[in-house]
């Protein structure tokens, strides 16, 4: 069942992105930035965690989850160390996405030649 919800919720988030691009004529960069901020705001109201429980990868794979995990890491550390934890904990949960992008970016540049 979780597979179906992952498909539906993930697809729905992509439709929101497509509407931002087509109807509101935002560039892809503006669209992605808006979605990340949306994810962060949703976690601010504790709405994103239930969505992950409900839809699994449908909520963790779209870029909105990046905003969610930034707030999440910051809040987890802030509960332990107060306001300074907001800065120190920011990348605690998100590191895998950014690290993977950097590592595979460099490996990709080593392995592949530009096309076209």
């Amino acid at each position, binding site marked *: 069942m979780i597979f179906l919800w992952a498909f539906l919720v993930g697809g729905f988030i992509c439709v929101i992105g497509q509407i931002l691009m087509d109807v509101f004529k935002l560039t892809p960069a503006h669209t992605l930035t808006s979605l990340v901020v949306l994810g*962060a705001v949703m976690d601010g109201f504790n709405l994103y965690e239930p969505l992950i429980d409900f839809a699994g990868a449908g909520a963790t794979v779209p870029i909105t989850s990046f905003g969610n995990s930034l707030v999440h890491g910051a809040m987890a550390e802030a509960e332990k160390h107060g306001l300074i934890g907001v800065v120190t904990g920011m990348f605690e949960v998100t590191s895998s996405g950014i690290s993977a992008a950097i590592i595979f970016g*460099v490996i990709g540049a080593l392995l592949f030649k530009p096309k076209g």
Partner: protein
Amino acid sequence: MTHKNNNKKFEKQHYQKIQQKKEIKRPVIRNCFKAFFVGGFICLIGQVITTFYIYFFDFTEQTAGNPTVATIIFFTMLLTGFGLYDKLGQFAGAGSSVPVTGFGNAVISTAIEHRTEGFILGVGSNMFKLAGPVIVYGVFSAFLIAIIKTLFMKWMG
């Protein structure tokens, strides 16, 4: 002088009118369907990988998102390197750019594209050219939200 300005204004308005008329109407509904199915399918693959990590590597449903993202970005590297992700992007629009694969593709494709300028000045300094805004404003908004939430929780006890 004012006459000239008015003339320019008129020309601009006229141009915008023609532009609006000639602009190709975007097939919004069809694009949304494509985005829905491709985006949903990528998340479905993500769910398969997540399930794999939960059953074989002792991750919980909450923590399995991280290795899933890393694995998906690895596959994105292969698709980007072989030039397949571009084709998917042309077909799927937001369906391929909203999932984390789109973030990976933005980083990896710029890295590959700029390798001719050298690895430090080309790859290193251009890598986050496209994906940078996402990180910058993601972090800044998360910072504001976390500060507000922390203060709010302190005052409310």
